[in-house]
């Protein structure tokens, strides 16, 4: 800890700012306006800090900070690499938007225990930053667990028996897989490789037999429960009992992306593409992930609860990224990385809209949305745009990630995956587009009032920003691609 | 035959100790009367005393007192050790008996079965 460089301070702040924010939120609990101001200021400060880290990284500075040394030879270490940078930018940027949205949502909904909500939200963001900037696998694991525990009070926010049951599923699956499989894989990796550093080209290559490497890969993919690969996906729909801002940021962006981000990172920096491509287990896992893509989409079609439908859609989309990681080449990596960003913007928009519909029209089922396009035109338009982005329609961001995913699958020699992506795109259309169609083209039921009543302004503002994000990412994907490209140019890749 | 004889008779004291050990343990584990359990424990510990005492015995040796004409002494150390062990054993017995007295005061019985029944009915009453 001695001799902190200014860059080290930046890294420390990325985790510390939200934690200080959480403390400030608790201290200001008696003055809701000041408390919300603290949330927003913290969010902006964090985003600025992350931007400064990004600039420093582009300037070629080495950013590294050792937090503690809990195990000999294995420090808790923060560092920057392109994929983590992207994840941190997305998560911290969207946190500001979500905070704006939460203020509108929580007040309109007259939620109880708002202080606890904002405080744990900030802690969860701190854990997310820790995951994004984790310098080795142990650090990643530590923050991964911290994220699970800090989101638990958010999932069980209402304290009802349904919330409690959901909390049990949430914790049971996430902690169960992470301790039962992920931790074993980490310790196993440490036992064979002698290190847990993230290194370009991997640390396992040449040190293990195919069997052990395959076993480790299986343990990682299933052990990272946050990636929601079937059969460990149940926690995500369960987590939908949480207030909508939680579902929006954490269960469409931070938590779930932390899972796939970890898988992407482990494939890239722990195994290395060459090793992964050569494993039999990879094909088996691809099949499981492909099955998840299709099956979750099919389940989504059957869900009438809007948030549940979106949750299953997320499960399906997450497995895109798992597939991208398992393709294990440049295009797959770019596609996976892009999808982290594009899906984040698309899905958060959809959740924001779902929350807005809930607080304004008090509707949570797809079948109740008839005619809502007339009473909440802005919200439903945003919903349509978000849906189209996730489906992958131009001119929206989702196109790019799908483009790279398909390119990776095609040139990676697994043409059958192209078919999977195609089918799942069709299914996307089936489960997403009926929602805005109902809202716009069906007439409202007789008992619904036709008075035009939009969501709270703060909510609309947030929805507007993320919708715009979907467009902007389509127009300017270069900076993200460049950022991600930097991660793998060092390796011996085509 | 000779070996067997040696094995059985030559280690007679050890056999005796082993038998006492087994008897003591058996009593402690199977009896439901608390006093009998403690008696078993005593027998069990006595077996160990025997084991130690025979250890120090040297054929033809006498007590280790320096005296003219005596050259062969038995080893005094195990005997001293066992004095300590006997003290421990007495303390254990006294603590055990004290506990039993208090159990008798609290439960009105020194039969383990009664005590278990009483505890079970307490649990039922409170539940």
């Amino acid at each position, binding site marked *: 800890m001695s001799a902190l460089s200014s860059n080290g301070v930046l890294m420390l702040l990325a985790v510390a700012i939200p934690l200080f924010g959480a403390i400030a939120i608790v201290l200001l609990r008696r003055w809701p306006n000041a408390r919300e101001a603290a949330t927003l200021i913290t969010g902006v400060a964090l985003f600025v800090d992350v931007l400064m880290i990004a600039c420093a990284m582009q300037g070629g500075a080495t950013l590294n900070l050792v937090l*503690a*040394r*809990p*195990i*000999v030879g294995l420090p*808790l270490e923060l560092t920057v690499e392109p994929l983590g940078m992207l994840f941190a930018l997305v998560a911290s940027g969207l946190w500001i938007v979500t905070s704006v949205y939460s203020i509108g949502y929580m007040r309109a909904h007259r939620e109880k225990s708002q202080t606890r909500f904002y405080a744990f939200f900030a802690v969860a963001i701190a854990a997310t930053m820790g995951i994004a900037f984790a310098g080795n696998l142990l650090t990643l*694991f*530590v923050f991964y*667990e*911290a994220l699970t*525990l800090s989101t638990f009070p958010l999932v*069980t926010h209402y*304290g009802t028996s349904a919330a*409690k049951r959901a*909390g*049990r599923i949430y*914790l*049971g699956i996430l*902690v*169960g897989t992470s*301790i*039962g499989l992920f*931790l*074993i894989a980490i*310790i*196993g990796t*440490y*036992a064979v490789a002698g290190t847990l550093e993230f290194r370009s080209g991997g640390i396992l290559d040449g040190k293990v037999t195919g069997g052990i490497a395959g076993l480790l890969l299986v343990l990682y993919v299933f052990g990272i429960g946050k990636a929601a690969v079937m059969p460990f996906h149940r926690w995500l729909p369960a987590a939908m009992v949480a207030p909508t801002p939680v579902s929006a940021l954490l269960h469409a962006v931070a938590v779930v992306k932390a899972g796939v981000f970890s898988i992407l990172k482990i494939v890239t920096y722990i195994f290395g593409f060459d090793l992964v491509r050569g494993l039999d287990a990879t094909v088996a896992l691809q099949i499981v992930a492909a099955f998840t893509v299709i099956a979750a989409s099919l389940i989504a079609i059957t869900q009438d609860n809007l948030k549940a439908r979106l949750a299953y859609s997320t499960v399906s989309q997450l497995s895109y990224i798992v597939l991208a990681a398992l393709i294990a080449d440049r295009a797959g990596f770019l596609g996976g990385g892009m999808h982290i960003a594009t899906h984040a913007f698309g899905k958060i928009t959809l959740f924001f809209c779902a929350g807005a519909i809930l607080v304004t029209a008090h509707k949570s089922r797809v079948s109740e949305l008839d005619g809502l396009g007339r009473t909440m035109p802005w919200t439903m338009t945003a919903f349509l745009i978000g849906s189209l982005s996730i489906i992958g329609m131009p001119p929206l961001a989702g196109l790019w990630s799908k483009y790279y995913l398909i390119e990776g699958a095609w040139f990676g020699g697994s043409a059958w995956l192209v078919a999977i992506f195609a089918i799942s795109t069709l299914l996307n259309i089936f489960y997403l587009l009926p929602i805005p169609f109902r809202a716009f083209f069906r007439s409202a039921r007789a008992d619904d009032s036709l008075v035009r009543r939009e969501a709270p302004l703060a909510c609309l503002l947030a929805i507007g920003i993320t919708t715009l994000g979907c467009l902007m990412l389509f127009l300017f994907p270069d900076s993200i691609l460049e950022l991600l490209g930097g991660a793998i140019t060092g390796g011996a890749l085509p | 035959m000779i070996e067997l004889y040696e094995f059985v008779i030559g280690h007679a004291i050890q056999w005796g100790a082993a038998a006492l*050990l087994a008897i003591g*343990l058996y009593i*402690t584990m199977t009896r439901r009367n*608390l006093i009998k359990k*403690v008696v078993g*424990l005593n027998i*069990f*510990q006595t077996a*160990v005393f025997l*084991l*130690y005492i025979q*250890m120090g015995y040297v054929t033809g040796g006498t007590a280790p007192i320096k005296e003219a004409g005596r050259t062969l002494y038995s080893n005094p*150390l*195990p005997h001293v*050790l066992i004095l*300590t*062990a006997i003290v*421990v054993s007495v*303390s*254990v017995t006294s*603590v*055990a008996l004290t*506990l*039993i007295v*208090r*159990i008798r005061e*609290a*439960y009105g019985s020194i039969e*383990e079965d009664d*005590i278990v029944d009483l*505890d079970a009915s*307490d649990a039922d009453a409170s539940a």
Partner: protein
Amino acid sequence: MRLLEHLPALIVAVPLVAAPICALLLRTRFPYWFAIAVAWATFAMALLLMEQVLSQGVVVYALGGWAPPWGIVYVVDPLSAMMLVLVSGMAAIIMPGTLLGIGSEVVRRAKRFFFAVTLLVLTGMLGIVMTGDAFNLYVFLEIASLASYALVAMGSDRRSLPAALNYLIQGTIGATFILIGVGLIYMVTGTLNMADMAGRIQTLEGSRPLQAALAFILVGAAIKFALFPAHIWLPNAYTHAPSMVSAFFGATATKLGAYILIRFIYTVFGDEFAFGHMGIAWVLIPAGVAGAILGSLVAIWQNDLKRMLAYSSIAQVGYIALGIGLDNRDGLIAAIVHIFNHGLMKGALFLVMASVILRLGGANMTQFRGLGRRMPLTMACFVVAGLSLIGVPLTVGFISKWYLVLGAIEAGLWPIAILVVASSLLAVIYMWRVIEVAYFETATDNRPIKEAPLQLLLPTAALALLCVLLGISTEFTVEIASRAVVFLDVGL
């Protein structure tokens, strides 16, 4: 400093002499403050000894100036120094709260005897750890045990009496088995000094008395250690003992069994005889794993939380046994670190029970309803220590688990590694039951309940804090465990 040289003798002698003095002090407050002073003094001495060991290596002290093998020596190596710090530290930290903890539970006039007996337990435990003489170890073991039986019997409920008697019977069997083992070793080596025994055992590989000796000591220590299936005494003893006694025992009592086991296996018999020749891994690993799984499973179904913690102790003892049984460096480090770490977390958890019993009159699930709001600080400590018990990263439990799993994988025992983490998932279930009840349910009555008094809250908070601090920075625990392993080292 002449006094510093005599530390090894003083650390045992001070509580020994203090115990009868304590019994003679008449007013209630005197023995209380006196016992606190003695406990903290031993803690200070333990820290000084630790410092000496770390700076100069093993400290050997010949009692009364009689050189070994005639006299009794006290030997302090890193392992015993760590045990000293654990035992005396727990005594020191728990002692101030005892008056509250026992106030409602022990007959008023027995208080001074309570403190006297507690000091005797402390004497015995410290003696076990210090001595380098096998028979002396037995004597100290009996001092500690006899006093422990008396302490358990001081519980408020009459059920503490049969619990104490059962503890006495099984404890005596265990200690006597150790005595038999020591006698058998003496028979073939002609010495009681552990170092001399070790030297002579190496030349006596096939000796049958030695084999029997190892078997007796293994079983005897396993009973003291509450290693499954020799754990029967533990649940009742911990449940019905006065709560502060449970806290002290939960943190230390079984650990001494572990210490005796490690000391005999590695220092006296040697790794090669114990593992290579006798194959005790075949006992320790299955018993450890079975204890870890079954103990946690049974803990899930308990309604009385003190009993739940008692079963959890059996599970944790299983980890320690497994670590010893793995017979590699990381496994042994895990065992030693876990002895210390588990002491911290179980101490904290039992102290929470003490606070709850003090304020609510019991520690059943029903009393925990809504406790998160009624006693927020106490429950916060419970959550921290509970997370540590589960083995969440950045807590001490994670460190132990890390080394244990690493040791298992290095030994090529992947299934064992998986069973270890599986049992820690069971810990998630039984801890979470409590956390849910405390935070999501509302209390059944609306009596105003105060937060625990400072004498209880401060020690609880201190232990909970240590659970985190020593999980982030492991220089102290792992470093000492590594050194201990070096000293115990026989071909690891």
